[in-house]
């Protein structure tokens, strides 16, 4: 049972990491628009498009 003293903090650490990622995603606006990116991924890349900045570009705050 004393393994609890290791496992519980470890489990909380994992949960904390996942939570940290969620909070980062929420605060950086990843959840602002849930519909358009789902559509955008279906468009084929065309060579002439200059808007190749893609996912690197962040939406306005």
């Amino acid at each position, binding site marked *: 049972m004393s393994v609890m003293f290791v496992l519980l903090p470890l489990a909380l650490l994992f949960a904390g990491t996942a939570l940290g990622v969620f*909070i980062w995603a*929420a605060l950086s606006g990843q959840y602002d628009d*849930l519909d*358009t990116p789902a559509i955008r991924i279906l468009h084929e890349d065309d060579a*002439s498009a*200059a*808007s190749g900045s893609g996912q690197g*570009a962040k939406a306005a705050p």
Partner: protein
Amino acid sequence: MRIAEAPSESPLATAVACAHCGLEVPAGRVSEGKELPFCCEGCRAVHAAIHDRGLDRYYAYRDAPAPAPARPTGRSYAELDDPGFQARTCWTAPDGLAATELFLEGVHCAACVWLVERLPSLVAGVVEVRLDLPRSRAFVRWDPRAATLSGVARQLDALGYRAHPSRGREVQVLRRLEDRRMLARIGLAGAAAANVMAIAFALYGGIVHGMEPEYAALFRWASLVVTLPAMIWGGGVFFRGAWAALRVRTLHMDLPISVGLVAGFTQGLVNTVRGAGDVYFDSVTALIFLLLSGRYVQRRQQRGAADAAELLASLAPGTARLIEPDGIRDVPVEALLPGARVEVRAGDTVPADGVVATGRSAIDVSLLSGESRPVEAEPGDLVHAGTVNLSSRLEIVAQRTGEDTRVGRLARLVEEHGRRRAPIALAADRLAGHFVAAVLVLAALTFVLWARVDVGRAVDHAVALLIVTCPCALGLATPLAFSAAIGQAARAGFLIKGADALEKLTHPGRLWLDKTGTLTAGRLALLAWWGDAAAKPLAAAAEAHSSHPLARALVAAVGPAPDLPVTIVETQGGGIEAAVGGRAVVLGSAAFVSSRIGAVSADLDRRARELALQGLTPVLVAVDGAAVAVAGFGDSLRDDAVDALARLRTHGWRVGILSGDDASIVQATGARLGLAPDDCRGGVSPEGKLATVREDGARGSVVMVGDGINDAAALAGATVGIAVHGGAEAALAAADIFVTRPGVARVADLLDGAHRAVGTVRRNLALSLCYNLTGAALAMAGLVNPIVAAILMPLSSVTVIAHSYRARSFGRAEAPPCR
């Protein structure tokens, strides 16, 4: 590719689908050649624009045809390049690129996203375009040295999307940041609740079977560590709310919530440190999570309605056509200065108060004064900003512009009254005060009673009572029920900006209607006939071949004309002479008729004058050289107006008309609706409306229903302001509720819905109070432990959530709301 197939897809040759929008092509436009069919020139132009730029893939991406034909306007959008305008709507990134947000009309599907985001390859200098489809907003980044915003807007226009600058950016950015923070808080509280609950199950096992103290300590400390951030960051929302309410000495639901949270957390902290006793961390975190989620849902729903109203407002054109020596230029209204000469085309809104320099036209002043009849304007006449030029081109010299115009002053009045209006506490918040008092008294009582047995247990039971009565369901009852109702209302065509407006609508008082647009149908009808009824069919037969609105109204009222040989001579602006089956019929104004048949009898002449006084248009009818009857035409009432007023009265409202129209017309309309003459006030100025509304507001609840700028101040000053279909920008901004479909029956529907929504809230409150009473009774009996609390609280919340979303306050609209 889809374009080539589109025409052949339709089974019948008669139903050819437009190659751009997919709507049926009118028969006259279908040609046999190789050309693609288009329903209108707009679609042809947009299709050509898409094709010329090599963007045919748009049609392949499209999964549904466009909901409406494309209408490129060909505007120059030059006003978007004005430096003053750009300073307010655009911003510059550190790398020298400019950025802005545009609201796009007409984006609706995946293909639109693709097409709009191809813009950087079409306009040199545009770096990035990203479309937010649900909100119809495009984020644009461009190099100001290589491209102009007007160029971007022109390109979008050519593709069939009208671009509007998105106003109030600062507010939107703040809201979006607040939304993100709220979401992060919910995530934190949710994760904390789930993890603490998992740990709590181990502790529950300990309550039942016993547990070694070092493990109990581990679980308590772990729960504390997880709860702490949720308490500080998530619970902080409620502590700040409670503190703010205390400081201004008002009551708010946040207060009892904070008491429960603090009690639960403090007890847990103390028991963790001393290593004995119960901890309620699972209840505390679940409480924070549920309440935050409720707040978030409410925020989103209310935001939806407010955004929609703002969108409608931003559609209004804010440009003027400035006449300069070298041509005409579009400028933002804000950039106009007194003395500027501007062109106002037919259909345009007058941009400034000024004097007509050249041209003659009819001006629709109804938005400003409420007067429904157009006013003639000729050189030298004063015209006001906000009025609409109806018939022909005018040139005016601006005298007062911007905030100095009559409309600008009214807008300031609106703003002042919007701010001054005291917030009315919702029923739940008023309840919160009693709730806190009752809970504290009960906790004290529990302590005193148990202190005679054991002081330690007395503290435990008193704290358990504070925790178990923490108003989770009570805190969710109002936001969830109202947000569900506001969501349903939006689908039914009512945009409601705040839950308080719904609650206020259930306290009856005075209800003022603006006549134009709400009570009347806006078309002419035969309302009075005095004299020989036998002349009616003859008159109708004579008028059957005329397209004059009065003639149509007469024919509609009398029914199909007798089949007689008819010849007519129409005199513009006078009347009509006809030979109907061998009888000579003359219809028209008194002057016209008397010029044809000689003197009209004094009796008929008097009747005609009376009708004119009532606001009706009199038409004399003469048969075989003698005037026999007089007909009165006026704006007809809506079919449902009388019923709707009866429904409003059954809710306990005293209904009246408050209009800028001529007093005699208002009295006549009121009489037809069965309203007391005292309740029908005509010729009221915008300032007078505000005064009336404030006077009534001092005595009780007052609702103003209106649509024009002239109503805006009264809308803002009333307890609840309702703007109706077709309203002006200022009216939308000032009102609490916007009804997107026409008619006073919709106002009655709104009241019905408000009553049902408030009923749901009351039942929710009663349900959650029952749970709290049960909890309090158990705690006083000393029967509450963390397991009981953990069962009772989610159970009460789920009841309230289910009840809120099951209730139907607003029915679905039978027709889609039109804009």
